[in-house]
């Protein structure tokens, strides 16, 4: 099978970007990505655009906005979607483009322009990502779904609100060191625990942010990658799995089946196990989601996720650094851009370019991206050599 590497990364500033439209956000990320790779757009064969929602920014057919605005037509470009995991679906699709032989150099972009609508409207749009017919009539929201996972996890394993708040404190600490992050401020445990309740037991600081942002990656086949980049980062394992649309119908409410199955596939393809992973970016749309991810990815035993953060094992100097870019929690969660941003962080870390957030000499990194409340999950494993 053809080997595929990341040979260019471009990250736009995440935040409330009331200064820019969806297509303008993409332009920033693609420009940075091309500069990083040293390639011109005319050297790119094909493109994949990840956008999760059509309703945030009146952007039905968003891929056309993108290839028009950056002048990529008439080359191939299409849009992919996987809710909050859209960016990782785009990366996987880009990889498939190269492995299939259809292209040698592929641009993968992810973007979401979320703040054009009100917070309550954005909450509604995301709430519909569950079962819009059978669960939404009960006023369900994204925080609501994860709050139900949190209550089940607390009841089964004794996980505490303090442990969840510790995830927020960690991710805000590292977000403060990431110039592309939406929130650049540290928070205290007390501040997290006393913030207002969004969906019991989740409080404001347990929730990721409604964010505008774009990110872009350039992928290349083995031969092209070695010619383009001195430090290509190889895609060594890919896993994608799915689960029921309704949270109600899950086999377990304290674990995501899609994560477990996707992780198993990615570990097998890369020929590694959880203990081989030097660092990870995981889907912390809510603090409980990061704790569940520790367990589902095999970084600790089932039910021990709360203790892992309590022991600070997921800090930079811990056993397995997680989300040292601030995570969705502090970096922000522009749905379509998130998965691409995760892969950018791993690329920076494996290249040794993460500055004061640099993990010591990492060789293998993992991204974990979840759509909705676990209806889809993708795990990707990256290698330096």
């Amino acid at each position: 099978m053809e080997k595929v590497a990341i040979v260019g990364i471009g990250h736009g500033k995440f935040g409330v970007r009331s200064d820019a439209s969806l297509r303008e956000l993409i332009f920033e990320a693609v420009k940075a990505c091309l500069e990083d790779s040293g390639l011109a757009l005319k050297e790119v064969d094909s493109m994949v655009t990840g956008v999760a929602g059509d309703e945030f920014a009146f952007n039905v057919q968003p891929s056309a906005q993108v290839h028009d605005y950056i002048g990529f037509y008439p080359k191939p470009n299409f849009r992919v979607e996987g809710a909050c995991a859209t960016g990782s679906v785009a990366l996987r699709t880009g990889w498939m483009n190269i492995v299939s032989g259809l292209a040698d150099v592929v641009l993968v972009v992810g973007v979401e322009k979320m703040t054009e609508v009100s917070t309550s409207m954005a909450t509604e749009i995301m709430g519909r990502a569950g079962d819009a017919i059978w669960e939404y009539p009960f006023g369900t929201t994204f925080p609501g779904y994860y709050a139900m996972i949190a209550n089940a996890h607390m009841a089964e394993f004794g996980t505490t609100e303090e442990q969840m708040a510790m995830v927020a404190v960690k991710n805000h600490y590292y977000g403060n060191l990431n110039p592309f992050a939406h929130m650049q401020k540290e928070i205290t445990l007390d501040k997290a625990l006393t913030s207002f309740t969004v969906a019991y037991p989740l409080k404001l600081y347990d929730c990721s942010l409604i964010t505008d942002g774009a990110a872009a990656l350039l992928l290349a086949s083995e031969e092209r990658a070695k010619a383009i980049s001195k430090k290509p980062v190889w895609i060594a394992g890919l896993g994608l799995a799915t689960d029921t649309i309704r949270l109600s119908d899950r086999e377990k409410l304290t674990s995501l089946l899609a994560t477990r199955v996707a992780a198993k596939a990615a570990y097998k393809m890369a020929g590694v196990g959880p203990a081989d992973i030097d660092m990870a970016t995981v889907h912390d749309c809510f603090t409980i989601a990061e704790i569940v991810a520790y367990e589902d990815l095999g970084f600790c035993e089932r039910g021990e996720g709360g203790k892992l953060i309590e022991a600070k094992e997921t800090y930079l100097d811990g056993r397995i650094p997680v989300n040292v870019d601030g995570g969705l929690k502090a970096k922000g969660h522009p749905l379509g851009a998130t998965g691409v941003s995760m892969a950018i962080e791993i690329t920076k870390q494996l290249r040794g370019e993460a500055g004061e957030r640099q993990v010591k000499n990492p060789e293998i990194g993992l991204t974990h991206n979840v759509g909705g409340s676990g209806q889809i999950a993708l795990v990707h494993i990256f290698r330096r050599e």
Partner: protein
Amino acid sequence: MDFKNFSLNISQTKVIRFVEELAAGRIMATICKKCMKRYYPPQADCPACWESDMEWKQIGSEGKLLTFTKIHVPPEHFVVRQPLMPFSSVQFEPCPIGILEVEDGLRIMGWMPKIDLKKIRIGMKLKASPQILPDSKVTILFEKV
């Protein structure tokens, strides 16, 4: 009855009978006549055996609570008071919701307006009942047995 009276967003489905039965006081599931697999929410089609010959059956409404939450920041349908917005004329103050496991492992979602959040425990026994709201919408409430 318009299915939208339950679903808020869609009218067109093969299981429209669900909302009519709910308004008449019954929570219904469908059962595949061939393989006997039960579906709640009701399905018109059975992906277990790929048949679409289904029977309707009222489901036992007592069960144990699997999980719950209380959503304080609601989606727009539940926050904006406009005549065209279903539910907006009903004052559903932030109210706990939960998932109840009833007979045969079927899981029902419902509101718990009469139960204090502090007294909700996972595993507690509750009963699901259909409820017609003042604006003629229909939904499901959980109450203590």
